[in-house]
């Protein structure tokens, strides 16, 4: 079976990729071969007939007919003014659904928005900017914003909507558990917790915060950035990461790692240990690490002391060899570009997405928040 293998041998790892990029330059026979073979899976369905589109209703001040009769128009305006005044006099609270915010649905029990209790029997509710949603031990709710994503709010949770719009979409999770599924572009949806900022990088994840402000994120799709004051962790699908107030994100790990690995990592991350105990815990992590635990070891490079870094480098090199352009010396001095290149080689995701977020947004808001 010809899979093109014969065309791939003895090639330099870095070559002009103009043809791969935009078909300019000298045609690459290998790429052309792959295009031919894979082209059979290409989209070739004709444009279907779509159902009728119901346009969004737009309010017009004067219906056409009223424009023809100024007196009638004046009367209509007068009536509208009376209705408006009546509304303003008798209303006690703003109508929730007129606020910019997240739609609240799938309500179970009696969650509260601010001081107002909501329930499934009532119509649609909305969590507006600056408002707080709180569930008790029997309550749940779902939040949805069409341009951003969906959040399921578990019992005993309190969150606040901080901002929306074209910039960062930001909420604060004070305590409890949320399950997010985000379809806004990577880097735009941010959750503040008391001990770290969670940045969506195109993903679905669960975020928990306990009463002490400690947190845990578990990613089920895509990946998540966890950050506090420049201390950052990246959590791809299947991985988890804990965070603690004043410490920030720990080292992420895959939850199917050995119990010994996870226990040693937890001690290394958060316990007030002696240098020797930290070295011992790091040694356990290195010994127990499997290939996919390269995730953890890559993060450890910047978290161990100089003496241990070479041990981490050696183990990580065996599990996931660095690209040719990455040197041991560069990694040992924590060269950011080389660390990023090695990360990209691990196959989780492209770290440039995160670097772009850092350039665009990091520092624009205060990480974390007061409880």
């Amino acid at each position: 079976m010809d899979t093109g293998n014969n065309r791939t041998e003895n090639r330099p790892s870095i070559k002009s990729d103009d043809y791969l990029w935009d078909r300019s330059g000298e045609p690459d026979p290998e790429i052309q071969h792959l295009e031919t073979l894979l082209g059979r899976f290409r989209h070739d369905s004709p444009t279907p007939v779509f159902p009728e589109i119901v346009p969004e209703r737009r309010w017009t001040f004067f219906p056409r007919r009223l424009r023809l009769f100024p007196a009638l128009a004046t009367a209509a305006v007068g009536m509208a003014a009376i209705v408006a005044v009546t509304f303003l006099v008798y209303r006690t609270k703003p109508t929730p659904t007129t606020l910019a915010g997240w739609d609240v649905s799938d309500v179970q029990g009696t969650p509260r928005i601010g001081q107002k209790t909501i329930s499934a029997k009532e119509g649609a509710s909305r969590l507006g900017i600056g408002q707080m949603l709180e569930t008790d031990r029997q309550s749940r709710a779902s939040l949805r914003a069409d341009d951003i994503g969906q959040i399921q709010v578990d019992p005993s949770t309190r969150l606040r909507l901080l901002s929306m719009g074209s910039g960062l979409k930001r909420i604060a999770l004070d305590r409890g558990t949320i399950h997010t599924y985000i379809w806004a572009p990577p880097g735009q949806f941010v959750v503040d917790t008391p001990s770290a900022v969670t940045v969506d990088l195109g993903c679905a994840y669960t975020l928990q915060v306990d009463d002490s402000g400690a947190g845990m994120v578990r990613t089920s799709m895509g990946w998540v950035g966890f950050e506090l004051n420049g201390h950052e962790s990246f959590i791809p699908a299947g991985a988890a990461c804990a965070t603690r107030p004043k410490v920030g994100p720990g080292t992420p790990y895959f939850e199917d790692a050995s119990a010994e690995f996870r226990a040693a990592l937890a001690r290394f991350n958060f316990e007030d240990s002696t240098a020797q105990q930290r070295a011992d815990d790091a040694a356990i992590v290195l010994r127990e690490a499997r290939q996919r635990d390269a995730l953890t070891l890559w993060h450890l490079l910047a978290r161990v002391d100089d003496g241990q870094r070479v041990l981490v480098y050696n183990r990580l090199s065996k599990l996931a060899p660095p690209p040719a352009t990455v040197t041991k010396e560069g990694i040992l001095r924590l060269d950011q570009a080389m660390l990023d290149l090695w990360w990209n080689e691990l196959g989780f995701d492209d770290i440039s997405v995160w670097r772009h977020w850092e350039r665009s947004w990091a520092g624009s808001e205060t990480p974390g928040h007061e409880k």
Partner: protein
Amino acid sequence: MARSGDRGELLATGLRPGPVREPSALEISEGATWVAAARDGDRAAFGQLYERYARMVHGVLLAKVPVGDVDDLVQDVFILALRRLSTLRETASFGAWLAAIARNVAHDYHRRSVPEEPLPDDASDQEIQCGASGGVQDGPSAAILEAVMSLSETHRETLILRLVEGMTGPEIAGRTGMTHGSVRVNLHRGMEQLRAKLSAGPSRVGPKQEKS
């Protein structure tokens, strides 16, 4: 996303920036016009959007679901987009928004059809069966698609858009809202990994992709 900073990322990976075909002003304004017209109920304009974005949606889905189900899901994505079009505030973000819907639909597909249970550590074979090559007869095309499907999610999506759908790098960036730098790096690294897998033969798969 802004496109600043791409050059440094490219140079860091040993890539030359090379010639770039940015979407023309006409293309951008046409797209925004079509989105606005479709929002006002113009089905022909929505048809134009389909023509422009169907390959991108198809590629995004093909990177995540079996090939036999992709065409149906493409239609689902556009129907969903049609219903939600009034909620799209930035017409210029239509492509990124549509790509997000496609990924969401693929996620829902797996949530409906795959029992949620932890994968064994060495689950590559199972993952590949769940992937795009499912339902395709054996042959070199299927073998290569299977190799592509064993790449990481980011690399395989970009590579499928380039090698299967025939889009150029600038087109991929323009349609999906990704930066040129990210697309170029994904293509370069994806090809490197694909070459390694094809050289190693069909039994060699990894690194493992996570179940989505």
